[in-house]
């Protein structure tokens, strides 16, 4: 997983709340056998509408999503995070995230920051004043900056540390690699091996 310290790029003022994971990516996209390539499924029904914000020229190649409250509710599908990531998003800011979505995001290298409702409104207004402007999410300082507006966001220390270090679950376990290797050295000869095939 890539280490994240700072995300800078086009920020989208996403004036919607209760965005559930079925909206983020519908079930029809779940039949695939890959862990990437879900960008076409992101918000696929909303993207049918030419006026949808992600279809507007100002918001192409976005990196940061500034969303309303209760983002990522519903189904536990990890595909919702994959779709956002594959589309190019590296950070989502919202007043409130669904627990499972936020957990999945932290494991997959998608930064989720919490700000209050008033702050999200300030960020939206700043972005809408100049559509397509870049913003910066600074994970070290826990701040979001849009033009001359800088606000703080919340993220728990553990997830922040994992993102800063670029540690997914496997990366975390591999910090114990020496212990795994030591264990393998003690593993008895009678225990099963599948190779060579007998």
């Amino acid at each position, binding site marked *: *997983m890539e280490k994240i310290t700072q995300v800078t790029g086009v920020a989208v003022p996403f004036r919607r709340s209760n965005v559930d994971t079925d909206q983020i990516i519908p079930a029809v996209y779940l*039949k*695939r*056998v*890959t*862990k*990437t390539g879900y960008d076409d499924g992101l918000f696929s029904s909303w993207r049918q509408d030419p006026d949808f914000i992600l279809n507007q020229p100002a918001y192409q190649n976005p990196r940061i999503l500034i969303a309303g409250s209760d983002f990522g509710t519903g189904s536990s599908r*990890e595909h919702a995070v994959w779709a956002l990531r594959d589309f190019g998003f590296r950070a989502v800011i919202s007043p409130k995230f669904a627990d499972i979505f936020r957990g999945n995001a932290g*494991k997959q290298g998608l930064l989720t920051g919490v700000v209050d409702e008033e702050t999200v409104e300030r960020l939206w207004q700043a972005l809408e004043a100049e559509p397509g402007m870049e913003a910066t999410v600074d994970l070290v300082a826990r701040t979001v900056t849009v033009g001359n507006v800088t606000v703080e966001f919340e993220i728990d220390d553990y997830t922040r540390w994992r993102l800063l270090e670029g540690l*997914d*679950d*496997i990366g975390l*376990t*591999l910090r*114990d*690699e020496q*212990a*795994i290797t030591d*264990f*393998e050295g003690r*593993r*008895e*000869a*009678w*225990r*099963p*091996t*599948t*190779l060579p*095939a*007998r």
Partner: protein
Amino acid sequence: MSGKTLAEKVWESHLVAKGENGEPDLLYIDLHLVHEVTSPQAFDGLRMAGRPVRRPDLTIATEDHNTPTLEIHKPIAEPTSRIQIETLRKNAAEFGIRLHSLGDVEQGIVHVVGPQLGLTMPGITVVCGDSHTSTHGAFGALAMGIGTSEVEHVLATQTLPLKPFKTMAITVEGELKPGVTAKDIILAVIAKIGTGGGQGYVLEYRGSAIRSLSMDGRMTICNMSIEAGARAGMVAPDETTYAYLNGRPHAPTGADWDAAVAHWETLKTDDDAVFDAEVFLDANELEPFVTWGTNPGQGVSLSQTVPDPTTIIDANERAAAERALEYMDLPAGTPMKEIAVDAVFMGSCTNSRLDDLRAFASIIKGQKKADGVRVMVVPGSARVRLEAEAEGLHQIIEEFGAEWRFAGCSMCLGMNPDQLAPGERCASTSNRNFEGRQGKGGRTHLVSPLVAAATAIRGTLSSPADLIAMGIEVDPAYTGIEGVSA
């Protein structure tokens, strides 16, 4: 300090790192079984992160969920099924994993393949992206189903972070009556403790009735531990286990065998160990058991009637029973033995091993199936199919009017073309009677192989003893009735 249970001993002997401050323990995984449905994203995740499979030599893959059971030489017609199989083949080649593909003699249901190769053995940890991994607990292994992210984790690290469990003893003492099998024991256990009764627990099956079962029977019991919501199910290893393993392709040999047996002998739960919960069942009282509803806990003895939901006190259970009976199209009070079926499915990781096929064949031998009933027999693996054919079981099955198929998961979950039509009713030796599991609108009654066989003959849910009234001679071993002929 009190003694330890079997499950605790296996857990502790696999600790790589002890979790602190409520973090999970890190456990080493001895054997990772892989199939085509839950592995593609795991391999893709490895590819994205540039990680290899840490121990290809502790990993084995087979094709089972999507494989056709007819004309297996032809390309798979359904695109999603075909893509999943093709993806597994590509991934296995790229990451150096041993794969048994359709047509290979070791291909079959992943939970049949591991034991038959002698890879599943006492005192090891086994995982697979499939909930019925609990099957392997029959050997005294700690065997758990996992999700796709965890599959990736095990592929990359050969370990898994796991939260501690509670232990439950399920003691079945006594002697089973003729015609009563391992399947009836586990259906009765689930009816007793409920589909959530095992949640958070590793179950240990104990007692004289369990000890007297073959390995195939013990696998049937452990297989359905997950239907009680349990993390895993286990049986302590004994001479039956060793006899099954000895001489199998991957079983230890020579000094390794002696060292293994010496270790396996230490695994039994200590006399002074304390379980977090205990359940007792009297084997002498058990009868053939069948389900009437849409979860595996909704079962009764075959001699009973469909329960009346209005007599159920718990409001949630009452509502669930009402919904189930509506879906199953069964009036309360119907004698179970009067329920007519359209199909009989003999197969699945619960009941598709050689013992199961032998039991089924011994009942149907020389008989004809009931008119209008479709009977499908699907061996658990290509090797089981060969072994059955070497004994002539396929002839018995085909002369009976049943279909003798190739190996796979088949109609247990209908990911391949083997499905029930809407409204069809099936006596099935599988493990889940969920709505639509065997095909949209299909209705499932879970039964043992003996009940499946007798049902295929009579056309209604039946035990072997019910055949005697039809003038059919049945081995007294299955009826307890000597020398009766009409």
